[in-house]
C-alpha cells in the first residue's frame, strides 16, 4: 500500500476543503437570516393573518375547426361550486368550521351525497388546494350558493372553461370529446402535470392531439382571509397567465359532412367516409348511431348511457375506423386489378365457363347473385354486372398470394395510420393465416372462389375502403389518410408520409378499371348514382353477415375524369349495396358537386323485395 500524501500537503488540502465547507454553511446562515430576521415580519403576517393559497388559472383548450375555419369545438365558461381550504390559525378551528351541518347543507345544495363532499373537503384541507365540489352547475344552484355563502365558510364559485361542440353530433366520433380526467388517467399521466379536475381528450381528435390542444395552466399565489376569500396577490410573485392550447384545423369540410350526415340519416347502424383521393385527407366521416359530445363533455349519467345504448349499438364506437366488414363485391376491383397486373386476363378476356347462375367446384355449386345467369361476359362486363361466376374463376387462376399482394398495395389488411386512436386493422388472409386454421398446405382451394368476390375471411374498415377507392381513383399513388390539416403555432407538425406502397402497374390497366367502374354506374348495378353532367365511377357490394341481414357496401369516386372525392359507405343489415348505399352516395355527390339547389330529399331506406334476396347465396 502506498502511503498517502505527506502531512503538510494533507493539511493544505484540508484547509482548502474547510474554506468550501464554511462558505456553504455561511450561505445557509445567510438564507436563515434573510427569512427569520429580514423577512420575519412579512412572513409572520402571511402565516398569522392568513395564508397563501395557490389558485390554478385554467387554460382554455385549443379550438378545432374545419378546413374553412368553421368552429367544430370551442370553450364556454362554466360555473363550478368549489371549496377553498380554511386558513385558520390552528388545526382545531379549521376542522371546527366544517361541521356535519355544513357538510349536510352543502351536499343538499349541490345534490351530492355527504360522504363524497366530506371526502373532497378533507382532501382539500390536507393539501391546502381548492377542491371542485360540483362542476358546471345550473344557474339555480349558483344563485343559492351566492345567497348562503356568508353562512358556509370556504364555499365559493369559480369560473372554468368546458368544451362546447356547436355542430352537435356532426362528425362526433371523429372529433371525440374532452371531459374531466378520471382517476385511472390521472395515475397514468401524473408525470405530465395533470391534476384532478383537468379536462382531457377521451376519444377521437380530442384524444389523439391532446398534447397540442391542451393549454398550459397558469397559476397565482393569493393571500386569503379567514373565510377563504382572496385578499390580494402575493407580493413578489406575479401570477403566471394561462396559455391557451393550439388550435387544430381539420381536413374535414363541414359542407360535405352535413351532406353525408343527411344522406346517412336513414341508416341505423353504419358508417361512411368521404376522402380527397389526391392526398388522403378526410372530408367527412359519419358513424351511426350518433351521439352528442356536448352531453359527454359535462359528464354523463349511467342511466342516460344505458338509454343511448339500448338498441345494442355503441354510439361512441367510430364504425368508420373501428369496425371491419367483409368488403363484398367492392373487392372485385382488386381481383380485376390483380388479374390485369399479373397478365392473367385482359379487358376482353372471357372465362372458360360462362355464367349460368352458378359454378361447380369441388363437388359444390357456387351461385351467382343473379340466378338467371350473365352468360359469357368479358372482364369489363363482369365487373359492370358484378358477375360472381367470372370472379370465382379469376380467383382460382390468380391464387392467394397475387390477390392479397394487390389488396395490401391498396391499403387493406393493415392500419392506414390515420391520426385517430384505436384504428382497426381489418384482415387480409395469407398462407400463414390458413395454415393456422386448416393445417399447413391443407386449406381448401374453394376458399379462393369466395375471396375472388370479396367474401370469406376478408375484413376492411370503411376508412380502408375509402383509401382503396382513392388509390384506384388517382391511378395507384399511395395516400396517407389523415384528419388534421394544420396546427396553429405548433412547430414540427407534419402529415406523415403514406404507409402503403401504392400500386405501380401499366396505365392501360388503370384505364380498363376506370372504364369498368364508370360502366357500373352507367349501365350496371349502381345506376342510382348517375348524376347528369358528372361522370361517376363506383362499385357496389353486399357483405355476408352470418349474424343477420347482409351489410350493404358501396364505394365510388367523382368526377370520374378528375376525381376530387372518394366515398365508401357501409349500411349494416340493410341488404344490397346498389339499392341502399348508391342513393346515399348520389345525394351526397349532388350536394357536394352541384350545390344545394339541385339536391333532392335525402333517400329513405325502403326495403324492396330485391333486398331480401340472399346475396351471394351458398
Amino acid at each position: 500500500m502506498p502511503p498517502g500524501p505527506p502531512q503538510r500537503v494533507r493539511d493544505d488540502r484540508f484547509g482548502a476543503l474547510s474554506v468550501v465547507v464554511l462558505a456553504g454553511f455561511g450561505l445557509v446562515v445567510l438564507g436563515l437570516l434573510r427569512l427569520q430576521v429580514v423577512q420575519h415580519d412579512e412572513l409572520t403576517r402571511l402565516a398569522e393573518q392568513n395564508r397563501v393559497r395557490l389558485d390554478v388559472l385554467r387554460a382554455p383548450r385549443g379550438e378545432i375547426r374545419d378546413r374553412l375555419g368553421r368552429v367544430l369545438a370551442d370553450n364556454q365558461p362554466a360555473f363550478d361550486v368549489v371549496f377553498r381550504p380554511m386558513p385558520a390559525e390552528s388545526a382545531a378551528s379549521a376542522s371546527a368550521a366544517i361541521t356535519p351541518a355544513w357538510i349536510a347543507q352543502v351536499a343538499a345544495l349541490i345534490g351530492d351525497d355527504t360522504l363524497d363532499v366530506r371526502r373532497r373537503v378533507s382532501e382539500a384541507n390536507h393539501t391546502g388546494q381548492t377542491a371542485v365540489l360540483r362542476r358546471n352547475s345550473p344557474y339555480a344552484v349558483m344563485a343559492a350558493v351566492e345567497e348562503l355563502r356568508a353562512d358556509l365558510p370556504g364555499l365559493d364559485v369559480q369560473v372554468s372553461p368546458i368544451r362546447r361542440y356547436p355542430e352537435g353530433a356532426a362528425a362526433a366520433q371523429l372529433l371525440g370529446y374532452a371531459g374531466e380526467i378520471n382517476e385511472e388517467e390521472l395515475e397514468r399521466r401524473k408525470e405530465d402535470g395533470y391534476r384532478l379536475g383537468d379536462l382531457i381528450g377521451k376519444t377521437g381528435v380530442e384524444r389523439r392531439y391532446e398534447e397540442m390542444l391542451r393549454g398550459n395552466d397558469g397559476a397565482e399565489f393569493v393571500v386569503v382571509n379567514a373565510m377563504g376569500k382572496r385578499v390580494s396577490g402575493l407580493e413578489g410573485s406575479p401570477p403566471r397567465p394561462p396559455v391557451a392550447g393550439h388550435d387544430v384545423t381539420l381536413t374535414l369540410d363541414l359542407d360535405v359532412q352535413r351532406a353525408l350526415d343527411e344522406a346517412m340519416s336513414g341508416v341505423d347502424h353504419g358508417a361512411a367516409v368521404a376522402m380527397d383521393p389526391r392526398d388522403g385527407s378526410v372530408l367527412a366521416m359519419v358513424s351511426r348511431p350518433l351521439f352528442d359530445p356536448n352531453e359527454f363533455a359535462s359528464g354523463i349519467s349511467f342511466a342516460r348511457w344505458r338509454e343511448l345504448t339500448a338498441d345494442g349499438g355503441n354510439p361512441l364506437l367510430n364504425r368508420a375506423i373501428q369496425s371491419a366488414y367483409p368488403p363484398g363485391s367492392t373487392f372485385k376491383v382488386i381481383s380485376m386489378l390483380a388479374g390485369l397486373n399479373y397478365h392473367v386476363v385482359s379487358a376482353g378476356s372471357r372465362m372458360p365457363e360462362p355464367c349460368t347462375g352458378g359454378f361447380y367446384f369441388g363437388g359444390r355449386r357456387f351461385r351467382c347473385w343473379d340466378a338467371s345467369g350473365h352468360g359469357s361476359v368479358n372482364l369489363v362486363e363482369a365487373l359492370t354486372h358484378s358477375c360472381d361466376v367470372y370472379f370465382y374463376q379469376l380467383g382460382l387462376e390468380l391464387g392467394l398470394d397475387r390477390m392479397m399482394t394487390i389488396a395490401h398495395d391498396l391499403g387493406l389488411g393493415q392500419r392506414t395510420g390515420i391520426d385517430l386512436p384505436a384504428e382497426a386493422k381489418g384482415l387480409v388472409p395469407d398462407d400463414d393465416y390458413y395454415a393456422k386454421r386448416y393445417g399447413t398446405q391443407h386449406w381448401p382451394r374453394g376458399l379462393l372462389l369466395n375471396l375472388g368476390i370479396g367474401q370469406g375471411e376478408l375484413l376492411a374498415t370503411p376508412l380502408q375502403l375509402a383509401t382503396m377507392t382513392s388509390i384506384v381513383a388517382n391511378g395507384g399513388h399511395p395516400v396517407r389518410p389523415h384528419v388534421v390539416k394544420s396546427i396553429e403555432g405548433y412547430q414540427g407538425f407534419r402529415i406523415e408520409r403514406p404507409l402503403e406502397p401504392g400500386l405501380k402497374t401499366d396505365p392501360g390497366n388503370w384505364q380498363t378499371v376506370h372504364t369498368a367502374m364508370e360502366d357500373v354506374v352507367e349501365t350496371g348495378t349502381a345506376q342510382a348514382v348517375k348524376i347528369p353532367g358528372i361522370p361517376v365511377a363506383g362499385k357496389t357490394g353486399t357483405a355476408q353477415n352470418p349474424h343477420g341481414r347482409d351489410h350493404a357496401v358501396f364505394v365510388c369516386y367523382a368526377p370520374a375524369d378528375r376525381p376530387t372525392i372518394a366515398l365508401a359507405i357501409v349500411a349494416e343489415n340493410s341488404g344490397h349495396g346498389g339499392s341502399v348505399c348508391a342513393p346515399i352516395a348520389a345525394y351526397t355527390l349532388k350536394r357536394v358537386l352541384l350545390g344545394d339547389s339541385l339536391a333532392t330529399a335525402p333517400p329513405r331506406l325502403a326495403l324492396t323485395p330485391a333486398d331480401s334476396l340472399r346475396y351471394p347465396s351458398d
Partner: protein
Amino acid sequence: MTRGRLPDLDWPLALATLGLIVMGLFTVYSATSVPGAHQGLWMKQLLWCGLAFIAAWIVAAIHFRLYDSLAWPLYGVSLLLLVAVLVAGTTRMGARRWIELGPIQFQPSELAKLATTFVLARYFDNARLNLRRARWWLPPLLIMTVPFLLVAKEPDLGTAMSFPAMLVAMYFWAGMRPGRLLLGLSPAFNVALFFVTGSIWWFAGLFAALLAFARPKLSLLLAIVALNGVVAWQLPRLWNHLHDYQKRRIETFVNPETDPTGAGYQIIQSKIAIGSGGVLGKGYLKGSQKALAFLPMRHTDFIFSVVGEEFGLIGALTAVLLYAVVIIRGFRLAAVARDGFAGLLVVGVVTALFFHIMVNILMTVGWAPVTGVPLPFLSYGGTALVVNCVQIGLLQNVALRRREY
C-alpha cells in the same frame, strides 16, 4: 475492533451526530403530532436508531483494508442492483428507487454511493497516479458516470448529483490542481448558467476569469474553449427543439416558484414556516404551519422547516453548527489519517454527506430546487438513517486506525 481502542473514536464527531439524531427524533415527534398524521412514527424512528447504531458499530469494527479489497465486487453488485431496480423496482411518487426485500425496502443507490467511493479511493490510492494524463484521470470519470446515469434514470437527480460532487472532491484530494478541476467542470457551469440566466454571457465572463486563474497549456486551452463553444452553440437549438412540457420541467427545476403543480407551493410554505419562526421560534410543538398541513412532507424532506418554525434562528443555527462539526471533523480525519486509501475514503464519504445537507437546507430556505433529498440524521426514514450512520461508522473506522499505514 477491541475495547482498548475505543478512546480513539473521534468524540466531537460522535457527539455531534448523536445530537442531530436526538434533535431529529424530537422534531419528527412534533411534525407528526398533528391530527391526521401517522403519530407513532417517532417510535419507529427510535427503533431504526438502534439498528443504525449496530450497523455503524459493525462497519467501524471491520478494518478498512477489507473495503479496499472488496471495492470492485461491491461496485459490480451495486450496478447490477441499480439495473434491477430500473427493471423491477417499486415505483413511488413517479420514481423507481426501491427494491422490496420482504418488509424492508432498500435503495440500491445508497449502496452504489458507498461502493463507488471505495472503488474511487482504491483507484486514486496509487503511487504511479498522474492526473495530468487522460490515461489516469479518465477512468474515474467513467467509474462515476455509470452509476450516476443509472441513478439519474430512476429518476433521483438529488442523489445522482452527489456522485459527481464526490468525484470532484476526490480528484482534488488525489492531487488534481484546482484550476484544472474548475476548467473540467466548466461545461457544467455553462449549461447551468444558461438555464438560470437564459443568456450565454454570464458564463462567458466567468470562463474568462477562470482561464486567467488556471493558465492552462495551449492544447488544453483550445480543447476546453472548443468544448464550451460547442455547448454554448448547441444549447439554444436544443432548447428550441424541446417540447413545451419538457421546457416547463426545466423551468420548474431552475425556478420552482413558477410551478403551479406543487414544488413552488412547497417552497413558499417552507419559507413562511421558517420565516415566521423568527429568532426564538414559536416553541416546541407550537408550529402553526406544520399543524395545518400547509407544510408538505414536513417530517421527511421539509423537516428543517419545522426546526426553523419551532426553534427559530437559534435552533436552526444549532443544527447548522452540529452539521458543521460533523463535516469539518470528518474532513480533518482525512488530514490526520496516514493511509492513502483511508484519506480518500473519508473525503468521498464526507463530501456526499455535505452535499445532501446543502441541497436539502438550501431547498427549504428557497435557494435550491426541490429534488426530494432527505436531510441526513433529521428526516424521518429508516433506510436513510442507517446509511448515514454507516457513513459515520466508516469515518470512525478511519479514526480508530488513523496511525496505521
